[in-house]
């Protein structure tokens, strides 16, 4: 232990910086729901200001410190609050990109002014360089002051949050801003205060650590990124834990430097430790602790697809342009080849981000793995080029599967963070190792095909790669997997509840994406001939840039956005002035922030869309319209129940911590009948549904469907066994049309959990799905809404669409959770008729949770009454209406009378 003490002491200084920065980061996240990936940019800005004032202008350090921390910090905080307000309702990708844009702007501007090389900043704290001894280490007073300041600030923040009114408001604003507003406190004001504190912490961290690192924008930004690991230890909530976590990371990193001295393959460990922590914490933290700060997210706009003839013509034109590139651009050809490989990379990333909504910040790792494997197979072992290409890309696939593991349990921001941690971890720990880019600066040679050694032919090889990739992506998108991904991207709950094994889907899409990223990496390597671990293309920073480019690229359709964005790599080739790359960064960052705060790039102006549509129709009129296929024999569900079929629940108990939400509930919901589950608010009805459908694990009890025990099955598996449900808050796929939503009800079950069924659609499936969709739409009376985007519907319409989705699927037992809420009297009656029709025609069973007593009394044949989680009565509606227990607990006389009248 004594031998470790010096390292513990030395680790505390860096650790306290991580803790300070981490605390500020967690504060802004908790109060605004935005995880500030660009937190480091705030620190860097403050340091630039400090440098300019203290070193350039020669002002006293105290003045420079005060201005750069206590004036610039709050100003940045106010600006950040404005940005955060715009970003808060946006999708995860936009939130990430909006904050990344800040990094690019700050780094670009700073480099323009001061150049890219680090400039030393002399220690300015009084007696900063003098040392005293502590446990065998000479500690500088500068470090000591930093540690003290960090501790004091975090402690003050903790006390503020715990014991003051402002602090209470800050904690409240994320949980329920409206409630806070109703109390007279201004949520925006509270958030502003939080951002001011957070940005000031960032500025403080930066300026305190500046003498140790110097004026180095990349290093400064990066230091703060290491605070993410500290924030993870604090579970993104607790400031004291974050601070402690930062200290722990600092200490462990320093201790590890002692041990990796002799173990060269672990060299990268100290530097990658914060990210290993980040990745592991996100993997193991219980899900309930990873509370998403905000649940509302803007939906994607409905995509406009140009008419087929327009698309064909555009495709031909673009292809022709790409084909003549080598004859036109002369010596700049390598840039264009690289741009095309970037297009392939973006196509593969687009599948993840644009189609399935999963923000992955480690994409370049797949490209690197593919390239390195290829260099060894084709270069060292002289394998056939094409064979090596495919095999190497396949080697990237398991890496994709590994990243899919966090994707299964995480979503949104936390997935972005986990993949980010993964990328940096791999870059620092594995890239420098022998089996990756080798330990020599020489890197690896990436050979070209023997017939394409010259640049021109190789360009065409890459172009062929782009065309093949684009074609496959389009096929996937328009096929079953594309539909599953889009559904899953909008509402994983919805698609799982109708039978899609989303785990399989996620792994599948990550694997496919990794494969094509590998191809891109290989082709890029071939274009530059030699690859090293330093190559910008494979760096973790480039993963961030890729996401930013992808997110702001115009055109929503594959492959245009990828081609457009890919070609941007060409620009630096043409503009060769020294400061150009830095200005390009600034411009790019600026647009990233702008576009992200608007929720995405502008779609094509409506006027142009309409013109294209008219052109398309004019062409279409010349073609005869195909007659629709006759619907196949519509399946009929289980024959009328004989009492044994349907849902049976025995002794179901659900606990949340110490609270018993459902207590030993036993009920039966046979097919061919509608069974009601009623009770006051909080009685445990929805919890029962959640337990029955598999979303919540009960403490004890059995759930059986058609006498088979399904208690161990997951949500999707139960759905495939025939259990469908609707939700108290309708879970629709907001950006899809009504018809697409309803179709999911059938198709997800067909996709199921097998890889081949998730990938492609047998022809009969198509007809089944279409028929089921149409019949369900008509049954629920929403056929006229078929082409409308689901997100724009009223509550009543949403409920009907959700019911239609249930009816489209082959479910034998439907769990309907307050389906008539939001419907008026007439609609409710119609709804009741629909339910009766459905049961009569298809023989399904329904378990209905409802508050509308007239509906309950009119459609249900049997009722169960819950109160405080326990069954207090069961019987026919007439019996329930006259029961004293029920009346006392729940009904009240008015409702009884209403029930009587309805009969």
């Amino acid at each position: 232990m004594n031998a470790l003490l010096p390292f513990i002491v030395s680790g505390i200084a860096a650790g306290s910086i991580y803790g300070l920065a981490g605390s500020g980061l967690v504060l802004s996240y908790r109060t605004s729901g935005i995880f500030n990936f660009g937190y480091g940019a705030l620190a860097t800005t403050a340091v630039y200001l400090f440098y300019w004032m203290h070193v350039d202008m020669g002002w006293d350090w105290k003045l420079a410190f005060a201005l750069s921390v206590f004036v610039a910090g709050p100003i940045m905080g106010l600006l950040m609050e404005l940005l955060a307000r715009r970003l808060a309702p946006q999708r995860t990708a936009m939130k990430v990109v909006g904050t990344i844009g800040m990094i690019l702007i700050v780094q670009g501007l700073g480099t323009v002014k001061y150049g890219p090389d680090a400039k030393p900043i002399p220690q300015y704290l009084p007696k900063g360089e003098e040392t005293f001894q502590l446990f065998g280490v000479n500690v500088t007073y500068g470090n000591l002051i930093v540690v003290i300041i960090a501790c004091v600030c975090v402690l003050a923040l903790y006390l503020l949050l715990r014991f003051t009114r402002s602090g209470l408001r800050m904690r409240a604003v994320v949980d329920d801003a409206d409630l806070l507003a109703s109390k007279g406190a201004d949520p925006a004001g509270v958030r502003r205060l939080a951002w001011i504190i957070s940005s000031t912490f960032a500025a403080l961290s930066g300026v305190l650590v500046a003498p140790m690192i110097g004026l180095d924008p990349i290093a400064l930004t990066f230091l703060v990124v290491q605070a993410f690991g500290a924030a993870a230890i604090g579970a993104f909530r607790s400031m004291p834990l974050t601070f402690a976590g930062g200290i722990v990371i600092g200490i462990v990193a320093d201790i590890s430097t002692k041990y990796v001295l002799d173990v060269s393959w672990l060299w990268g460990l100290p530097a990658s430790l914060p990210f290993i922590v980040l990745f592991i914490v996100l993997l193991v933290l219980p899900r309930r602790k990873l509370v998403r700060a905000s649940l509302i997210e803007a939906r994607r706009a409905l995509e406009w697809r140009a008419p087929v003839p327009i698309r064909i013509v555009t495709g031909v034109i673009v292809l022709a342009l790409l084909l003549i590139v080598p004859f036109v651009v002369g010596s700049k050809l390598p840039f264009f080849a690289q741009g095309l490989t970037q297009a392939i990379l973006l196509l593969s990333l687009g599948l993840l981000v644009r189609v399935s909504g999963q923000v992955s910040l480690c994409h370049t790792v797949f490209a690197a793995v593919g390239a390195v494997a290829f260099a060894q197979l084709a270069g060292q072992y002289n394998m056939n080029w094409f064979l090596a290409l495919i095999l190497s890309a396949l080697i990237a696939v398991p890496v994709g599967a590994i990243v899919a593991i966090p994707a299964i349990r995480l979503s949104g921001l936390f997935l972005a963070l986990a993949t980010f941690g993964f990328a940096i971890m791999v870059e620092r720990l594995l890239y420098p190792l022998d089996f990756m880019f080798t330990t020599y600066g020489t890197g690896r040679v990436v050979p070209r095909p023997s017939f394409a050694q010259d640049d021109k032919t190789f360009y065409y090889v890459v172009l062929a790669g782009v065309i093949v990739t684009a074609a496959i992506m389009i096929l996937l998108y328009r096929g079953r997997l594309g539909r599953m991904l889009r559904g899953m991207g909008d509402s994983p709950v919805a698609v799982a509840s109708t039978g899609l094994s989303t785990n399989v889907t996620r792994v599948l899409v990550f694997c496919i994406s990794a494969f094509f990223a590998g191809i891109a990496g290989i082709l890029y390597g071939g274009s530059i001939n030699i690859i090293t671990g330093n190559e910008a293309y494979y760096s973790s920073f480039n993963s961030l840039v890729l996401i930013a480019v992808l997110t702001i690229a115009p055109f929503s359709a594959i492959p245009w956005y990828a081609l457009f964005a890919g070609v941007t790599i060409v620009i630096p080739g043409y503009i060769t002035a020294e400061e150009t790359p830095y200005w390009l960064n600034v411009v790019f960052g600026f647009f990233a922030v702008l576009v992200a705060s608007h929720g995405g790039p502008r779609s094509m102006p409506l006027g142009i869309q309409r013109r294209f549509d008219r052109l398309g129709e004019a062409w279409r009129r010349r073609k005869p319209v195909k007659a629709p296929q006759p619907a196949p024999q519509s399946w009929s569900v289980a024959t009328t129940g004989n009492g044994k079929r349907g849902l049976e629940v025995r002794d179901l108990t659900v606990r949340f911590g110490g609270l018993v939400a459902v207590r030993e509930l036993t009920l039966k919901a046979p097919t061919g009948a509608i069974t009601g589950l009623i009770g006051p608010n909080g009685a445990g009805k929805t919890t029962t549904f959640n337990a029955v459908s598999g979303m919540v694990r009960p403490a004890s009890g059995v759930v059986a469907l058609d006498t088979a025990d399904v208690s161990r099955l997951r949500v999707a598996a139960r759905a495939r066994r025939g259990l469908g449900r609707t939700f108290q808050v309708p879970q629709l796929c907001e950006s899809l049309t009504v018809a697409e939503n309803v179709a999911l009800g059938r198709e997800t079950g067909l996709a199921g959990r097998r890889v081949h069924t998730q990938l492609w659609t047998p022809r009969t499936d198509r007809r089944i799905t279409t028929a089921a969709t149409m019949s369900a739409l008509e049954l629920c009376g929403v056929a006229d809404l078929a082409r409308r985007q689901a997100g724009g519907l009223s509550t009543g319409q949403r409920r009907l669409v959700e019911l239609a989705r249930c009816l489209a699927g082959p479910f034998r037992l439907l769990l309907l959770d307050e389906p008539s809420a939001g419907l008026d009297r007439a609609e409710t009656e119609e709804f009741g008729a629909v339910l009766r029709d459905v049961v009569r025609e298809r023989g399904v069973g329904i378990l209905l949770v409802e508050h509308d007593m007239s509906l309950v009394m009119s459609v249900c044949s049997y009722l169960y009454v819950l109160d405080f989680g326990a069954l207090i009565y069961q019987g026919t509606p007439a019996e329930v209406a006259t029961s004293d227990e029920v009346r006392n607990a729940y009904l009240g006389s008015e409702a009884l009378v209403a029930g009587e009248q309805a009969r």
Partner: protein
Amino acid sequence: MRIRMASTAAVLAATLTLAACGSSGNSDSNSAAQANSANGSAITIGIIARLTGVGSDSYAGTKPAATAWEKWVNANGGLNGHQVKVVIEDSGGDAGKGLSQTRDLVENQGAVAIMPVDSSTDTALGSYTTGKGVPVISPFNSYPLWYKTIGWFPLGIQSVPDGNNAALHVIKDSGATSVAAAVCAESAACGSVDGTMRDNAPSIGLRYDGAVKLDAAAPNYTAQCLSLKSKGTDVVFYGASGQVSVKFASNCAQQGFTPKAFFPYHAFNPAATKIPNLDALATEPTVPWYADVPATKTFRDAMSKYGDMSKNDETSMFVWSTLEAIRVAAGKAGGDGLTRDSLKAGLYQFKNENLGGLIAPVTFVKDQLPAPVKCYFAAGYKDGKYFLPEGADPKCLPS
């Protein structure tokens, strides 16, 4: 927008052509000072250098040296009767850009030779330059392709493993008993020295204490200093940028650990000398600029007169040596002016050629791969002054 540490250039593989011992005489000044023909077209020589971007500080001496040489040669009659033009392109460390600039120099500006100053563009140039028959010349030879390409003319020792072995010898000769490496964390190339040292240090009689990685974003390197201090390392081999090296040395000094420093190639630049109380050694493929031999005196005079001595660093010497090699080859080739083929013909006449003491003797044979150079120069800095730990003559690795 990417980090490329200066040190990656410093520690990359290079190959060295072994020359038989023996020195050759060398004409000290220009070949017959012919009157330059004002109508003759200028001979263009291309230089690709990392003048901007991260790590460009190490190559700041490129322009002054090239300008000084150009003016000096032109003032003394040019090359074979023609004026000389040295065009320097800034690659910013980007291989793609460097290749594109090389194409422009060769195809549009008629360059007769290309010198890549930093190694970031080396590999990108390989197939293009051999395809066009353009000679590529430099004493800084980091990649194996320098010794595997006919038509490339390495003037110096190959970095890995020979350059690193040379470093070990210089360190041993100084009386040290142990060495450790302090390398940048961002690039695998920085760490390549570990393998060589681990394998070869014991046989040379040095204890190898391992390598510490210095992350530019780390607030301090106290832990790394403590690790090496506990082992009692004599010499630290630096494979990191100047800024990082200075910080490491200061942090170690704070912990009472003041080992000798070793800098390879470019790393031994003015930034490194900012380390307080520096006691340093270095190996170079060219004679240290402050050595007292006639060839360096010419260099210093030309730099003072036509260039900028204050911006001088090791790169200046690399550039000067390369351009001198071209001048000497032009002289051997003779004729009017200079073309790629005549330049190569002149270079193939190099037999144990040392350019007046600027480089270790090199020999080039037509259509054959160059033989590795196994000789190097030792440099040093102590008590605020540069010195020559082993004299101005090249030392050679034992065969």
